[in-house]
């Protein structure tokens, strides 16, 4: 686990670096690795999920084929099993959805005929456990599913986050008070994605604080940079819910 968490941190750092600097470095796909290192990298891509493609999604760049190939390999190698948790199934769905969105239009396979295996993009996993979850658990689960929080997110998870944005705001404050920077960053990212932060929350200042306190963890930095990017590019200023 220690080996994998190190690989996940390295990969998240690469994504953060591209998001922060806006340069054209390749994430994960650069450089040939073999043997155990290659196996570990595929596992790290599966764990980080659709966020491996976040620079492509946010910066609206054409996807790089080596990165796409790596994401496809991670999906093939680690498909959700019959007893997989909701988070695992949703994470896999998000990867499928992102690859499909980046390589095709309206769900049509790309010119190479490639299409992610598994469920079609319209069939979404169950979300009932999120709908009925207390706000504390909802915030935790949403932070785990942070890769789904992207601009114009249209998943069922995003719909729950949008509908329960006040609960997510409470969760953001609770996470900051508990100094759970990963959860705070994830909740902040969701609030930015669904434009659900009440004006009184002070989300921008909160995100700066979370980045300052927890930014040494690249997964925290990744969520925070994604949130700040969405806030900065939101024409409505990011304030959605009434204060």
């Amino acid at each position, binding site marked *: 686990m220690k080996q994998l968490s190190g690989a996940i941190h390295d990969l998240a750092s690469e994504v953060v670096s591209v998001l922060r600097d806006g340069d054209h470095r390749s994430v994960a796909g650069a450089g040939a690795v073999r043997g155990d290192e290659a*196996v570990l990298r595929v596992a790290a891509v599966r764990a980080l999920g659709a966020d491996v493609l976040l620079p492509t999604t946010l910066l609206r760049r054409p996807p790089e084929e080596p990165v796409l190939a790596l994401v496809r390999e991670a999906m093939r190698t680690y498909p959700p099993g019959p007893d*997989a948790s909701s988070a*695992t199934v949703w994470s896999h769905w998000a990867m499928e959805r992102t690859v499909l969105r980046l390589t095709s239009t309206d769900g049509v396979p790309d010119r190479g005929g490639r299409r992610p295996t598994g469920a079609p993009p319209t069939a979404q996993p169950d979300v009932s456990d999120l709908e009925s979850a207390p706000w504390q658990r909802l915030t935790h689960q949403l932070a785990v599913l942070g890769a789904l929080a992207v601009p114009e997110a249209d998943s069922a998870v995003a719909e729950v986050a949008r509908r329960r944005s006040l609960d997510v705001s409470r969760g953001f404050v609770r996470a900051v008070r508990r100094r759970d920077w990963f959860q705070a960053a994830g909740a902040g990212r969701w609030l930015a994605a669904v434009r659900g932060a009440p004006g009184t929350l002070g989300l921008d200042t909160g995100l700066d604080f979370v980045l300052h306190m927890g930014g040494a963890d690249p997964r925290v930095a990744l969520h925070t940079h994604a949130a700040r990017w969405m806030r900065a590019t939101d024409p409505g200023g990011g304030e959605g819910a009434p204060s």
Partner: protein
Amino acid sequence: MFSTESTTRDLHKTLETDVEAALNPTEADGVFRDSRECAALLLLAGALLLSPPTPRPKKG
């Protein structure tokens, strides 16, 4: 060669479990700062700073 393949297979099996764990983390324990404890520590530190120096025996 067989040994290398076997090791890689073992690593893959271990990673399957690790990936599942990474995708389903439990909520981290909160680290709270108790305001009253902080205030008490601040008062103590202030009192120590403002206290007169310890008397020393005069030289000679």
